């Protein structure tokens, strides 16, 4: 693992989420440093989305501690997480269907992404990238400028996924959580999506955490992978090392990892 000098953007300490008798996330700890592109993988029901829900405030963890940018946000609502620069997308696109595409973007800009009141007359925060300063530039970043005036229900599902990302970007985040944004897309669309995600990381200096069910796609694009299995973290390493990890191979036995094992050569430097 690479060394990071900057303090982590998000620290999760022993986060546990329990639903009745079921332990969906079991004492997972992870730190996410500024500028990282991290993938989370795991078989079905491994607790990936539940972990996301916990670190975005949607589900309060049963125990554990969440610190975002030095602020302890354990047990706070999602709007507090959003205010501290944590933005997310949902597995099934959850756009506001009756509002035009541009209004969907503006929603985030008017709440979590609002300019602080001290800049009401002049000035700007220094650390907010130019691209995130208004709806039209966000729209051109995600490539939906032509659809700006259409109601969000009228655009295609893959465009809705892009819109979801745009809505999350409109909150001017530091940490972007992407939940299966490439699911159901064609090969070419997945490549475009991966390119967009890398651009967000490289040009906007965002930290991106990316959950994907299709392991091969993800491993090609991220620098660090966290593997969840039955709610526990079983690996946290570079893609090349993760695919050789015996525990990971066992968890995935007979699953997609079988084909990823062939990919071993490709990933290894």
């Amino acid at each position, binding site marked *: 693992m690479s060394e990071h000098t900057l303090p982590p953007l998000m620290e999760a300490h022993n986060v546990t989420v329990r639903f009745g008798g079921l332990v969906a996330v079991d004492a997972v700890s992870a730190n996410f440093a500024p500028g990282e592109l991290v993938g989370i993988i795991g078989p079905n029901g491994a607790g990936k989305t539940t972990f996301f829900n916990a670190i975005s405030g949607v589900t309060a963890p049963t125990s554990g501690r969440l610190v975002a940018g030095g602020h302890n946000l354990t047990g706070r609502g999602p709007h507090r997480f959003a205010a501290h620069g944590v933005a997310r997308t949902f597995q099934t696109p959850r756009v506001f269907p009756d509002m035009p595409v541009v209004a969907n973007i503006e929603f985030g800009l*008017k709440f979590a992404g609002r300019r602080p009141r001290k800049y009401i007359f002049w000035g700007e925060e220094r650390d907010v990238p130019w691209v995130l300063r208004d709806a039209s530039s966000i729209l051109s970043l995600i490539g939906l400028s032509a659809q700006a005036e259409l109601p969000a229900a009228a655009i295609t599902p893959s465009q809705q996924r892009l819109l979801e990302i745009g809505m999350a970007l409109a909150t001017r985040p530091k940490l972007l959580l992407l939940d299966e944004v490439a699911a159901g897309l064609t090969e070419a669309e997945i490549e475009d999506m991966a390119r967009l995600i890398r651009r967000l990381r490289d040009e906007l200096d965002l930290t991106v955490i990316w959950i994907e069910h299709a392991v091969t796609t993800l491993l090609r694009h991220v620098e660090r992978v966290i593997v969840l299995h039955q709610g526990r973290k079983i690996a946290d390493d570079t893609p090349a090392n993760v695919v050789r990890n015996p525990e990971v191979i066992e968890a995935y036995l007979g699953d997609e990892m079988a084909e990823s094992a062939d990919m071993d050569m490709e990933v290894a430097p």
Partner: protein
Amino acid sequence: MTSRQLLIRDVLVLLAFAGWSLALPAYASEFVVSMALTCLMYVALSSSWGLFCGSTRYLSLATSAFFGIGAYSTALLLGDFGWVETILMGSAAAALVAVVMGAAVLHLRGTYFAVLTFGMTELIMHAVTYFEKSVTGTVGRVLTVVPERDTIYLTVLALAVLSVAVSIVVRRTRFGLALMGIGADEQRAQTLGVNTRWIKIAGFAITAAFAGAVGAAMAVRWTYIDPHTVFNPFIGFQTVLITLIGGVLTLWGPLLAAVIFSVLAESLRLQFPQIYLMSLGLLLIVCVLYLPGGLASLRWETFKGWWYDTRDWAKDIQRDLTGENEREKQRIKRREKESHFV
């Protein structure tokens, strides 16, 4: 139309409506004025209800609770305080109850919220009855000091205009946008930075403040006030029906429906009370099935669409009766069979 043109249109319509209602008592008969008063009461109740419940889709049946609280505070305070102070206090009391009630039940959604607000209304009514019985010894109060008819009329008119004006303003603010976001997808709105808890409580309190003020003003219409009259759940139901039929998301729908309803109510209730309630139910069913956006969403295209649908439906029946559908099916079958040989 641009947003600015829409604003100008809305304000002009509101001014025209207010001016006309203002002039009404000068020339109309006693009966018409009393009908207009009912109209205005339901305009205020339903547009303030739509302001919160319409955009957030939290169906509240507690309107009668707030109405009753307002009416009771008039019964207790009028005489010791002036007319305006009494109404303000009634409205504040209702808003206060809404904040407490909202903190308790606003995390629930859908049917649970509706049933709980209804339950809370009953609870408040019985609590007031119990209090009256055990503390003051009598159930019900007689109002001795009653203001002029015109004062009541002007007050309710002001409340109606104010509630529409507040709806116009709220639609254009971040607060209104947050309410819309909660209605569309509450969790998504939260993750985009909306503090939904406070927004909901504030919206609920605004609705309650209007219902309380209307209750306080309308209380003097009855000279005798008891819990079962002023906490009448029918007021709450009717407000919901009016708003749904008029169009929950529209600005003018509740107003339109309130006028239609009050006219129906006053003209039918005395002679044919069953027909009034039946027409209420029928109108609701028709609106839910064929006009989900409410009366205010009626356009020329809606009628055209209905006409085409009916025509196609009639054509289909005709083809069925003449056996044309059957022949068509056989023709297709034959063609398929023949195509195998090619």
